[in-house]
């Protein structure tokens, strides 16, 4: 009969009206400033720079100012200036560091390409929900000090991904140390061969066994398989501790004649 549909509709809305008072499952909204949203682990918006140590963020930044992210960034929101001097990194190897590292978050499109191309796991995606600034020019242009956040923070926002990254870095460090030991043993066994090793050390950073990690993952034309290692996925959590073996090397980027067998072996 005409009008029965109207009555059914009224019943539905009446149910909603009453239900919203006593049934929390119906009530879909959150009182935002009081109740902060629980973000999913894979939520991301703007990049930040990972540092090893919370107490000395500028000194223990993983970034070596290789400028790959700056070149890859589609909207070109990253600006990096290399340092003039070098500082030791986590493996004790002397590295450049970014004297200036700016990200214009008003330009950033949160694509995560900088994270995927970074060979040093130095830049990761942040989870800042309330992004607002009173000044759109300086307020949204984040500098090095604002971007640097400790690895422990990375663990709190993306635990799965951070564990995987840590395991990979530890594995790479272990392999590098083994190689260094082997190289030292070889050097001790054959002192005559020490000279070329010293020369190649000056020739390029990748020669150092401690930097096998870096040379292993120097990208540029980063293969897709390597990118897959950095994007969060549940299967990686289990696969990561097994070692960084699946990552193919990219020998084209390496300095000529620098530790080729060592890099491909890892």
């Amino acid at each position, binding site marked *: *009969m005409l009008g029965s549909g109207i009555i059914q509709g*009224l019943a*539905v809305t009446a149910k*909603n*009206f009453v239900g919203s008072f006593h049934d929390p499952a119906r009530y879909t909204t959150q009182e935002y400033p009081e109740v902060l949203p629980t973000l999913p682990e894979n939520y991301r918006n703007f990049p930040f720079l990972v540092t090893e140590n919370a107490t000395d963020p500028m000194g223990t930044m993983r970034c070596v100012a290789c400028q790959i992210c700056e070149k890859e960034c589609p909207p070109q929101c990253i600006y990096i200036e290399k340092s003039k001097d070098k500082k030791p990194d986590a493996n004790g190897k002397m590295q450049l560091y970014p004297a200036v590292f700016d990200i214009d978050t008003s330009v950033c499109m949160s694509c995560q390409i900088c994270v995927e191309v970074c060979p040093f796991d130095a830049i990761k995606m942040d989870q800042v929900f309330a992004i607002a600034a009173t000044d759109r020019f300086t307020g949204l242009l984040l500098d090095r000090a604002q971007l640097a956040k400790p690895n422990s923070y990375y663990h709190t926002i993306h635990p799965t991904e951070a564990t995987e990254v840590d395991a990979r870095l530890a594995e790479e460090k272990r392999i590098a140390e083994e190689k260094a030991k082997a190289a030292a043993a070889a050097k001790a066994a054959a002192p005559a061969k020490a000279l070329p090793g010293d020369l190649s050390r000056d020739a390029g950073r990748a020669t150092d066994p401690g930097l096998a990690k870096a040379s292993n993952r120097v990208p540029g034309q980063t293969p897709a398989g390597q990118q897959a290692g950095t994007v969060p996925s549940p299967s990686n959590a289990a696969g990561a501790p097994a070692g960084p073996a699946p990552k193919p090397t990219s020998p084209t980027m390496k300095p000529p004649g620098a530790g080729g067998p060592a890099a491909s072996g890892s």
Partner: protein
Amino acid sequence: MISAAPESFLERLPLLAGDLIARVVPAPLLWFVTSLIAIVAILAIFGLLFAFLTLAERKILGRIQNRPGPNRTGYFGLLQPFADGIKMLIKEDIVPRDADQVLHYLAPVVLVSLALMTFAVLPFGRHLVPVELDTAVLYFFAAGAATELAVFMAGWASHNKYSLLAAMRALAQLISYELPLLLSVVPVVMLAGTLSTTGIVAAQGGWKFGFIPHWYVFTPWGFAGFLIFFTAALAESNRSPFDLPEAESELIAGHLTEYSGFKYALFFMAEYFGMTALCGMGVTLFLGGWQAPCAFLEVIPSYLWFFAKLLTLLVLFMWIRGTLPRLRIDQLTRFAWKFLVPLALINLGTVAFWHLTVGWGGALQLARWALALVFVIVPFVLIGRRLSAGVAPRTYRYAP
């Protein structure tokens, strides 16, 4: 039929206030002062009611959509209407360069004043009628119909072809629904034998068996008439699902396109005033006005009963707004001319029958009810079936 029990102090409060004023104010000025007080009281009460209706509407719509509605300004968002008012007041008032300046300015003013004028004849309580007119019903609908003029004024003065077209469409709707609205009122006037609103309310006094009130809505023709009146009132006050003149999502507010700031707020105010007045008229005509539903409930003052019924109807308006989607213009006019008008005309016959069979008693009384119900239900079903033939139920072939 007014009960002979001594009236409570609260009930007699308007009378006492009137006496007090008569004692203070010199006699030649008395009519002026009393009408002024009535105007101020109506402006204050219904202005506040308008403010909180907007809040209630947003709250109710929110709850219907499982969200809280405004709750930031003051406790439960109680200050929200005032925040909205301040916002509207400090907004820039933009008038198109080519607009008819005078008409553009006058349209919202005329609309609000005409909407307010309708309140004058509503009997809010036993002793609370601003103006006692013998032809109150006629006056009410005349003033209500004049708002259509203001709508067209707004559309014309905007110097905007879309506003003008929207105003014409609004006129088409308002005039279409004016007819069933008035036709559904005629039976009440026929049976009460008076055009005075106080007389109509008095005719609905008393209780059958002591608990069934003699409200017109509890008769077959009265129920049908109330439904027709209510539907037509929804359309007359531009409320969803008949809010085509505005149609925010489709028409950028139709004839209101070129209005901004407080003029726009005035249109909203007029909509709510019109809605409230029509609900008040519906209460007066069909729901027994200020009459209490039971004898023992008469301790509650009559004006509270009136406002309780009024608020019930207003909440019903909001409930319907939260439920039904907007009609198309052809559906809208077809519904008026092919459904409401014939039903209202048939209802006239039903009430004539009801009026002629007043003397029937006993078993004949049952026959009277049965016949009247048949007169109401059969046309409804038949015309309704024809109206929706070939239209419903709709099958969506390409949607899941």
